[in-house]
Structure formats: structure tokens, C-alpha cells
């Protein structure tokens, strides 16, 4: 008896060890892929700003600048050195988080600017994804569960309609109607509005995210709806909400988690459009400002930072999937 028990415990321990090992291995494989993407992106940014026709110094200073001013700037940016040396400096700068000082704001380093801009971007992305995930999961449950009867098809159609509406067209219109005409909400970019503006922007942003979560969630829930263990739960007298929320939802959570993580990445990487759309400060606004003033160090730092957030969120989507569902793990 004791021998058997010990054997079972050992087997269990072994299974746990091999499971965590395979999770670790797939996480390593994923993060090496993420690192490759990041280095490629950074290198392309580096090359684009140096190899494409046109003198970067002339781009920064404008056509009216004198040759002397350009030469000074070229020395400051290291553009007078051979390309391979510049690249080595650039790579070192990436790993030590030091790509030089901002050209527009003397005395501030490029990565300081980025660190300052990260806060508002992360705020908006986290709130929007949180709202979107909550609404999406509720909509998915409503569109498969028995509560609405035949009307659950309407939920699904509504979800499809929202998913097909481009945010870029919808958000300015909604801002115009709700904030300008009816004045029921503050303008999202209004610095005095504070939390309310953030909430409005996140609410608008969360609609397409929720639609996406609801679509994927519905498909995943319909997949598990056939499972016998749901019948068992019903037979034991569980009410429908318990059957769907406690028994079905965890099984369907793998694809949902992946979508949510990918959305987080898209919002962080696509901050440029969103922040312009809502006229809010953040990483995207910083990037656009650096682009307008040709502030090369800040542009490099902010693009690499946004790329890193994007890639990390994508990689963690894969890792979450592997953690929840062993079938997705790489052997």
C-alpha cells in the first residue's frame, strides 16, 4: 500500500517535472523567436534611418542649415563613423538602454522620454483590454447559454456587426456625437477630464476588442458544449450559469486568453493611431513628435520599446496557451 502510494506520488512528481520542463522549453523557444523579431525590427529601424537616400543630418536640421551645422550634428549622432561601428554602438545602446540624448529636449535621454510616455499608454491599453475581455466573455456566454432563448442569435449578429466596423471610422464619429453634440462625456484628450476622459476612450476602444473576444469565445464554448461533463453537471442539479461559467468557461479559456494577450500587444504596438485618435499623451504621441522633429534617438528608442511590448505580449499569448492547453505545446 505504502509502496504503491509512494510510486504514484513519484509518478505524479515526475509528470509535474516533465510538464514544467516542457513549458519552460516552449517558453524558451518562444522568447528566442521574440528576440529575433526584436533585433530584426531594431536593425531595420537603424538601417532605414541611415541607408535610405538623404542625409539624416539634413532631415533633422532642414534644407536651410549650413554644412557646418550638419557636420556637428553628424559627429554628435556618430554618423561620421563607418556603418558597422555605428551598428555596434547601436546594439550596445539597445542592451544598455542608452541610445543617446534627445535632440529636441537637450539633457533628457531618449529612454527617459520613453519611460515617461509608457504610463499613459499602459493605462489606456490595460483598461481597454480589461473592459473588452469582460464584455466579450459576457457576450459569448449570452450567445451560447439558454438565458435569451432564440434572441441569443441577435447577440451574435450584433457582435459580428461591431467586429466589422473599423474603429478608425467609428471612434471620431462617436466622439463627435457624444462629446461635442450631446456633451454627455468629456473629450478623451481633455487634460482636465482626467479619469472620465480615460474611461470614455477605453470604453470606445474596448468595443471592437469585446467583439473579437466574443467571437472567439463563442466558437470555443460551442466546441465544449458537446462535452459529456456538462451533462453530468446538469444531471447533478447545477443551474445553467454554474454549468457554463464554472464548468464550460475554464475549458474554453485557452483561445480567449490568446486573443486577449494578442490584443494587449496590438494596443501597445499600435499606440500611435490610438493616441492620435483620442489626442492623448503616451508612447505613440512621443513617436509622432520624434518623427515630426526627426529626433532620431527618441524615434529609435520609442519604436524599439513599442516593438518590445508588442512582441512580449504575443509571446506570452503563446505561453499562456501552452500553460492552459497541453495539446498546443511544442514537443
Amino acid at each position, binding site marked *: 500500500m505504502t509502496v504503491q502510494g509512494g510510486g504514484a506520488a513519484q509518478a505524479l512528481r515526475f509528470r509535474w517535472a516533465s510538464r514544467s520542463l516542457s513549458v519552460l522549453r516552449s517558453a524558451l523557444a518562444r522568447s528566442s523567436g521574440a528576440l529575433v523579431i526584436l533585433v530584426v525590427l531594431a536593425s531595420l529601424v537603424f538601417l532605414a534611418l541611415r541607408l*535610405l537616400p538623404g542625409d539624416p543630418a539634413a532631415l533633422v536640421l532642414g534644407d536651410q542649415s549650413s554644412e557646418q551645422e550638419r557636420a556637428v550634428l553628424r559627429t554628435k549622432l556618430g554618423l561620421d563613423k563607418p556603418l558597422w561601428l555605428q551598428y555596434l554602438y547601436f546594439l550596445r545602446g539597445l542592451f544598455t538602454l542608452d541610445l543617446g540624448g534627445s535632440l529636441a529636449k537637450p539633457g533628457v535621454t531618449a529612454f527617459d522620454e520613453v519611460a515617461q510616455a509608457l504610463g499613459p499608454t499602459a493605462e489606456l491599453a490595460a483598461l481597454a483590454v480589461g473592459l473588452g475581455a469582460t464584455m466579450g466573455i459576457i457576450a459569448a456566454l449570452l450567445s451560447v447559454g439558454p438565458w435569451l432563448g432564440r434572441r441569443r442569435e441577435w447577440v451574435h449578429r450584433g457582435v459580428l456587426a461591431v467586429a466589422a466596423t473599423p474603429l478608425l471610422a467609428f471612434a471620431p464619429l462617436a466622439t463627435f456625437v457624444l462629446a*461635442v453634440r450631446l456633451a454627455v462625456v468629456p473629450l478623451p484628450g481633455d487634460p482636465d477630464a482626467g479619469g472620465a476622459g480615460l474611461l470614455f476612450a477605453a470604453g470606445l476602444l474596448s468595443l471592437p476588442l469585446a467583439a473579437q473576444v466574443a467571437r472567439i469565445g463563442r466558437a470555443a464554448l460551442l466546441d465544449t458544449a458537446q462535452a459529456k461533463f456538462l451533462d453530468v453537471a446538469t444531471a447533478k442539479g447545477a443551474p445553467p450559469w454554474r454549468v457554463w461559467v464554472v464548468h464550460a468557461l475554464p475549458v474554453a479559456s485557452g483561445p480567449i486568453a490568446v486573443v486577449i494577450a494578442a490584443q494587449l500587444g496590438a494596443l501597445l*504596438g499600435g499606440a500611435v493611431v490610438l493616441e492620435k485618435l483620442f489626442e492623448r499623451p503616451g508612447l505613440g504621441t512621443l513617436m509622432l513628435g520624434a518623427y515630426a522633429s526627426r529626433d532620431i534617438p527618441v524615434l529609435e528608442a520609442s519604436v524599439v520599446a513599442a516593438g518590445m511590448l508588442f512582441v512580449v505580449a504575443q509571446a506570452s499569448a503563446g505561453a499562456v496557451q501552452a500553460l492552459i492547453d497541453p495539446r498546443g505545446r511544442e514537443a
Partner: protein
Amino acid sequence: MKRGNLAVVPALVLCLVCVVGAILSGSEPGRMTLELAWSGPSRERWFGSGEAGVNLFALVTHATLRALLLAVTVSAFGFLFGTLVGAIAGIRGGAAERWSLRVCDLVQSFPTFLLALAVLSAVREPSRVHIGVVFCVSVWAPFARIALAQARTLRDAQFVEAATSLGATRVRVLLRHVVPNLLGPVAVQAGTSAAGVVLGETALGFVGLGPADGVSLGALLEQGTLAMLRAPHVLAVGAFAVAAVSGSLQLASEGLRRMVRAGL
């Protein structure tokens, strides 16, 4: 089948309207008439005027037409290149298949928008050619993925085996027997990709990285957002155009999907 055919209609009507509208409104969509700046819709100008008095009807038809052209060109490239890569990898199997899937993974998880930002910030005057090239970098991956999955099932099909044993060369088997049979499911992706390209181009134009001449849906939308208080009709025209283009393309791809499914 019938419903699938009908779903393509809005996209075709939209193309037709834009072509006719662009021809009617002349070849200079960016021409300014300063005294008409921000004026509302009138009999001469159905959609009113925008910044510096550009005729919004001319602007929106030209911009939509150019966006559609870009979308068609880019997704045609993705279709050809992706199908070829996917079909070859699927037929050969083994290492070729593994590596092309891995490259697809990398390309698909690449932040294209950031790449576009970097490339376009380095050229003095961004044009649609630059934008198209940047989109081409990543557009082929989903095509290749679908083609690969299809080719893998065709690899062991009896008619492929028959063709090989009759002495057909590898290229002939690929082009005459495999590729025609995987086109349907791959073609469905074209609509999705085209809609994605239109939205991507609009987003770039919206943040000021669009074509330098300002004839793009994104630039129009930006005008509308900035002049929301003064001239709401500009915003309405821009938002409606973007929604119409991306919506009709998505509808068309959904129809194609149904047609392919019914045909199989």
C-alpha cells in the same frame, strides 16, 4: 451559393462608383478653392468642401480608388508569392515545411505598423509605393500558411501520385495538379488581406505618414477629426468612406468563403 454571389456586389458597386466619380470630378482631386473652405454640401459639390476648399467628392473618390488599387496590388502579390511558397513547402514536406512555417510565424508576429513608421520616416516624401512595399513584407504569410495546409493534404492525393507515376515533372505536378486545387481556400484570404491593407493605409495617413499629396482616406479622416467643430460633414464623409470600403471588402471575402465552401 446565391447569397455568396450577392455578397460581392457591394464591393463591385463601390469600385464602379469610385471610377465614375473619379472620372467625372477630373484629375486634380487636391485642387483648392480657398473661398469655399469648409463649406457644406451644395448642388455643385455634393459632399461639400474640406480644408482650403478641396472638393470632397473628388477627394473621396480618388482616395478610395487609390486605396483599392493599393489593396488589390498588395494582396495580389501576397496571393502569388504566398501560394507559391506554401505549395512548394507543402509538397516537399520535411524541413522545407518546418522552416517556412517558422518564417511565417516570425513575419506574422512582426509589428508591421512600426516597420512602416520607421521606413516612411526615413524617406523625404512617402508615397504609395513605399507603403505598398512595407505591406508586402508581411502580407504573404497567411496565404502561404493556408496554401501549405492545403498542399499537405494534396501531397498524398491519388491524382498527384498518378501524375507523378505517369512521368510528370515536379514543376508540372505543382503547377497543373496541386496549385489549381488549392486556389479556392487561398483566394478567400485575399478579401481579408485587402481590407487589412485599406485600413493600414488609412491608419498611416491618419497619423500623417500617408502619401505626400494628401489624397488618402486617412488624411481625409484626419481633416475631419481636426475640423470636427467647424465642419462636421468632412468627418462624416471620411468615416463613411472608410467604413464602406472595409465593410464591402469584408463582406466580399465572407461571400467568397461561402462560395468556396459550397463548391467543395
